[in-house]
């Protein structure tokens, strides 16, 4: 977990241009000591570029980097106390597992006995001790993955940078490794910055999440906050599932804004809105409820419609409801409460305060 506000790395207004493309635009970020920060964003959003700049493998067009208060912007990679696990691992193909993992210590001139001891230690940590003398080209994807992490971890870097390290693995193996990486992070206790475009991976691993799009860092925060209070439509739609309504506000009073969306009345918490303004309202499927009777109470928005499709997902069910205005919305219900069938006429409702109004 993020331990207080002890900033280990400060990224200060970093931009990066490749020819005509801006890979990063004015990115500022504080990374806390000991946390596992996940940078999440679609392909091409600049995640790898940011990581490479932190590692010193790429130079920023503008902006500065500070590690524990010291300006490291101009240090070459081999003088930085960071280590990177690459998107395609980049193991040394002509070496064995041992040689790969020992590489950094050998370069530093550490005595052989100590190298041997630390290699054994780190290989045990990632649970591939028995593969010590194999050629890395003769390993499975998951095993190579562990070698890449071990090769970096053995140097005990202050910050471990991981660039979609699980990208090439199948879903089942990824899920296993998520749990293991969590454990490893707890055990090692250093700071990790983990890049991915997979929101589920981000939610599983992260303490905090930073969401990137088109070279900008749009929102950074505790993962629950980012999930529950996205700042833009992009964030709301990229992390988790959501229903998005475009609402024109016509009344703001008593801390509640009200407007209409395609014939339905919708209310939500006021965020300093004015009548006449158009906003986007994001409502997560799990915050929606269904019933055959209308709900009692004033604090709900209520729609009416017909169950269109039922998608069984094991422990929960997703209902697609065709509303009376013709729009489809998605509602998730725990399987034990899933008592509806396609064709049923139902009320769909949610509490005012569960809708998140977004200006952008």
């Amino acid at each position, binding site marked *: 977990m993020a331990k207080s506000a002890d900033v280990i790395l400060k990224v200060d207004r970093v931009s990066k241009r490749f020819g005509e493309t801006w890979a990063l635009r004015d990115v500022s970020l504080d990374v806390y000591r000991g946390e596992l920060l996940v940078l999440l964003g679609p392909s091409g959003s600049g995640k790898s570029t940011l990581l490479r700049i932190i590692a010193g493998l790429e130079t920023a067009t503008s902006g500065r980097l500070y590690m524990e208060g010291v300006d490291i912007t101009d240090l070459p990679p*081999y003088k930085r106390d*960071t280590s*990177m696990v690459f998107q395609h691992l980049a193991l040394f193909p002509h070496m064995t597992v041992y040689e790969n993992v020992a590489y950094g210590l050998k370069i530093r001139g550490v005595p052989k006995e100590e190298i041997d001891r630390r290699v054994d230690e780190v290989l045990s940590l990632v649970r591939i001790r028995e593969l010590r003398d194999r050629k890395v080209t003769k390993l499975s994807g998951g095993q190579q993955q562990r070698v890449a992490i071990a090769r970096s971890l053995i140097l005990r870097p202050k910050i471990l940078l991981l660039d979609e390290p699980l990208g090439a693995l199948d879903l089942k193996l990824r899920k296993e490794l998520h749990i293991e990486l969590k454990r490893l992070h707890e055990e090692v206790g250093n700071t990790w910055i983990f890049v991915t475009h997979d929101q589920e991976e981000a939610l599983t691993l992260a303490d905090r999440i930073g969401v990137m799009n088109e070279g900008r860092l749009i929102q950074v925060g505790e993962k629950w906050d980012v999930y529950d209070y996205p700042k833009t439509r992009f964030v709301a739609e990229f992390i988790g599932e959501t229903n998005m309504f475009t609402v024109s506000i016509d009344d703001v009073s008593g801390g509640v804004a009200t407007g209409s969306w395609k014939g339905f009345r919708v209310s939500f918490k006021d965020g300093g809105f004015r009548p006449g303004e158009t906003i986007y309202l994001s409502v997560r499927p799990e915050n929606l409820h269904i019933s055959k009777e209308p709900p009692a109470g004033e604090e709900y928005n209520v729609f009416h419609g017909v169950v269109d499709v039922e998608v069984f997902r094991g422990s929960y069910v997703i209902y697609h409801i065709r509303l009376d205005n013709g729009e489809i919305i998605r509602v998730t219900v725990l399987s034990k409460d899933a008592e509806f069938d396609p064709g049923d006429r139902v009320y769909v409702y949610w509490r005012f305060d569960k809708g998140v109004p977004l200006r952008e």
Partner: protein
Amino acid sequence: METSRLLKIALVVYTAFTVGFFIYLPVAVIIVYSFNDVPFFIPEWRGFTLEWFVKAFTRRDVVTSLWNSLYIAVFTTAVSLALAIPPTFYVVRGRGRVKDLYMLYLMLPFVIPWIIIGVSLYIFYWYLGIEKSLLTAALGHIVYSIPLIVTLLAPRLYSLDPDIERASMDLGATPWQTFRYVVFPQVFPAIVSAAIITFIWSFDNFVISYYTLGGELTWPVWVFSVIGKQRNIFPVVMAVSTVIILVSTVVIAYIVKKGYVDIL
């Protein structure tokens, strides 16, 4: 389906036959008849002898020409590798117009026919009053070897993942250490292949050598100078050829077995 299978077999057999008939067979004939007890070439076996080998390797002109060929081939290979490896990195990793022009500049000699390289150097040396020697011939070989080596090494360099070098530097290695421990070992087999191919073509080359040599001859030029002119020279040429074939087969087999190259 059956026809395509037959077609494949037919093609494979056809290639094997062509190679066998036009290369292995004549070479085998030379090897076998270099032991034939006849002072000229006839397709008839008259008994086993080692006389031609003794004769060949006691003739000063033969031995000298072989040494000269060896000297030129070694010199050409070493100098060309040293000259060609750094620019290959630049050509593969560099970007932009200057790089493209540089590449064109380096590669152009590759498409110039040997005869033109030979004749133009002949005129050039004469014009500048440079006395021709083994060295001037080697320079002619080097001109052509540089693009050859670039061509042989570039694909290997292209196939290297630049992230592997970044990983090395990320782990604390300087650019030089990265070259030494990560890049070089990965390119080494390709360098050995390039060296072998350069050595062989240089050892073999007649056309460029012919126009750029001084009084001392290389083996191919010596053969040209005597064949058809000296009586009973065939058995000597065949004996030397046999030795060359055997020695190069053994050397290549050794290199491949040691795993220095990545063919086979």
